[in-house]
């Protein structure tokens, strides 16, 4: 069946079987391998994507359910020049990456949180990551990276809002 949706800010139309998951659609039909299959039962978050502004496990979404939605995967997260964005840069700076297999999901979990608030406490960041398993890092440096990004984006936002008056 034909499935149409917005993927990483661009419209896509793909012909795919109706009984596959969004994860399979992304990986096997669209060639986007940033989302990983870690458990296929919605427990690990390695397959997380942002669907209409919310973090979802793409292994639990049927591909046809993506129709008409706006989906952002890790391939859609980058700076305007194509390099790493501020959150990705902070993941590197704060040492939040080890084996890296959970990291696409972690970056998207961070982005999904920062869409909602730029003033999260560390406890709120931890709650936002609770659906994403990481076996390497103990999460602390991931929390550091998201916290630092929230602060930077807050400063930028404040700066932007102030700029007309200055």
């Amino acid at each position, binding site marked *: 069946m034909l499935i149409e949706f917005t993927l990483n800010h661009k419209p896509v139309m793909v012909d795919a079987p109706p009984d596959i998951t969004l994860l399979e659609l992304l*990986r096997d039909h669209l060639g986007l*391998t*940033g*989302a*990983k*299959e*870690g*458990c*296929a*039962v919605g*427990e*690990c978050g*390695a397959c997380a994507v942002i669907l209409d502004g919310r973090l979802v496990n793409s292994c639990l979404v049927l591909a046809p359910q993506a129709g008409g939605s706006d989906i952002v*995967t*890790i*391939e859609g*997260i*980058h700076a305007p020049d194509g390099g*790493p964005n501020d959150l*990705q840069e902070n*993941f*590197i*700076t*704060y*040492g*939040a*990456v*080890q*084996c*890296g*297999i*959970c*990291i*696409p999901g972690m*970056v998207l979990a961070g982005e999904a949180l920062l869409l909602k608030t730029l003033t999260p406490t*560390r406890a709120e*960041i*931890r*709650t936002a*990551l*609770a*659906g*994403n*398993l*990481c*076996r*390497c*890092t*103990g*999460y*602390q*440096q*991931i*929390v550091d990276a998201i916290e630092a990004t929230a602060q930077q984006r807050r400063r930028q936002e404040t700066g932007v809002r102030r700029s007309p008056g200055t």
Partner: protein
Amino acid sequence: MTELKYIGKPARRVDALEKVTGKAKYIADRKLPGMLYARCLRSETPHGRIVQLDTAPALAVPGVQAVITSEDFFEHGLYGFPVKDKYMLAYQKVRYVGEAIAAVAADTPEAALAGVQAIICELEPLPAVFDPDHALDPDAPQIGPDRPDGKHPNFLDLLIVRKADPLAEWERSPVKLDQRYSVGPQEHAYIEPEGALAVPTREGGVIVYAPNQSPFVNQGNLAMVLDLPHNLVRVIQPPVGGSFGGKDDLVYETSAQVAKLALVTGKPIRMVFSREESLIASYKRDAMRMRIRLGADPDGTLRACKFEGLLDSGAYASEATFTAWRASIHAMGAYKYNACDVDIACVYTNNSYSGAFRGFGNTEVCSAIEQAIDELADAVGMDPMDFRLKNCLRLGDETAHGQVLTESVGLPECIQTARRLSDWDRKRAEYSAPRTTQHALRRGIGVAALYHGTSLGAEGSDYASSTISVEQNYSVDLTSGLTDYGQGSRTVFTLIAAEELGVRPDRIHMQRPDTDTAVESGPTVASRSTMLGGNAARIAAGNLRQTLDFAAADLLGCELHQLIRADEAYVGPTEEPVAWEQVVDHARAMGLALSAHGKWTAPQITWNHHAGRGTPYMAYHFATQVAEVEVDMRTGVVQVIGFWAVHDPGKVIFPQGAYGQLYGGIAQGLGYALMEQITYTNGYLQETNFESYLIPTSVDVPEITAQFVEAPFSAGPYGAKNIAEPAMVPAAPAILNAIAHATGRRVRDLPANLERVLLGKDLTKGGSAKACKLGLKT
């Protein structure tokens, strides 16, 4: 020594960019045109004889291209180190649920599964052993082959340490402890399941992309079971999505299966496990049952330790005998005794199988001895910190094995620092004060100390190699035979080479291991990369530096000793800097080779297995961890609310990486202490995915305060020792000791799950073969 530019300074992990952008290609992300998908038929019987194995019906399934069994391998695919007891596909017998029997290659994953299900495999059930305490009964069903020495075929090995007569010393000790402890198996739970991709070559060989720990071990196994010369077998390391000891044997097995299928079909073959298959088929951390007798004087001076352990190796040996050796060396903890005996026996059962896992025996014994030490401190009436400070190993002390510690012993400082950072004395007093029984939430604070031998020790010859070369574009190409599966060793090697060579780290391209381009360096295990691989990188870069120094002196018309460096540039007596590139050009013009090799071999040490005496390791990592917990007395829920870790890893090379190792290791130890439970019901695993096998999430792990005490080790690169395994080892006993402090009751069996904390015993639970049988079909 001149000030270090890169070592110990903030740095960027060399592979972080490709990982944060999702561009890193793990094994499941790699696909070739015409590639076939492979899948294994796995045993649904814990112990059985293969009476019929007919693959013809599978070949009749549309899309199925090939099926292989043990008959397709040289000597039926027998492999294993140090004990050669396993087959790449089961031969004659299966010994555990999940053991691979045949492998199918097909056009699609669905066809591969249909092929697996079409194979006619008849297994005649054999009596099985699930309780290691009965594995050596005279009438126990035989799991292993007959032993030439006449010992029980289910007996694998006995590892000992001997010092004086601990039972006599124990009898004479005024304060005695005699307790039993146990630990269950633990799953590595790397988020990337196992897999491998094989590509047949035109010369009749095979290239295998495998997320394995030790590519050269894999290559050796492949050459052996495929009956190919080494030069026709190439193993390439893709990014690895976590390992923790877990991607050894099973990934070699998977590699052999896809390699054989590639040779048979002439097509690329990929196999990737589901989570269920990963949990059911993979080896675990061994379960261990331990009895500890400790004796002390009333003033708290430790006198005797008698430690007896029984390690359940499961169906195969894998690394169990090495694990048991490391366990035996560390079983008494980092303390001084007048007399000390350790006996660790390992036996076969039909409970899956046990293999390497972070800490490698020390994680198991440390969780017991550090509880026993706390219990004895309590019996003496001493604060656990004071008790440890009174008895712990210090510079110049002799260990229970007879090794004198001549350098790099940071333990007393670790204990004192952890005490201060955690505000131990205040909290310990506050939480020890009498509490009303109605209080539902109780807090406690606990400590554990650690020592952990660096690298392989007397387990085997210990060396590593690196190569380095300057490329046409002035970048520097660095190789190592050791693998980075997430721990950060490629960054460590890069920083060391940059420091030695005097170039920026971003000029260096640190390659992943490839058996065609890297040099064999022993296995990537035992937290040995920083010291062994780091020294090799240091030597290789130093050799290249010498060549460039000659070129620079020639170019600048001066003596070698007159050269100084201004960032990358060379400066001579004229004080006119010449760029590093110019020196490279000049070296080329002089006809000098701009490539070098570095090999480092660890100092020779010896261990007498019969006497249980010797020098087991060249140096030790020391640490102290403190856990603060809150226990809900109504539910048994334990929340770790604070954690402090003070470690002596020698010199820290890559700080973000070292802290990351600590945080991650502690999280794994927290899971081991509280929630990670593996249950075999008559050999059938009950926890087959992450909804039942729980690992710590971001809300289970507290904010951790970590600090390093850097007691340099003279033979380590820049004084570095190790970090990866020691990070995890003391976390569980620190948490267990905190729970005992909070509740007044001790849980001596890990994990301290809700019922053990609340009721002090296990609840009888049902179990069945259902989850396993379903899991092998999804």
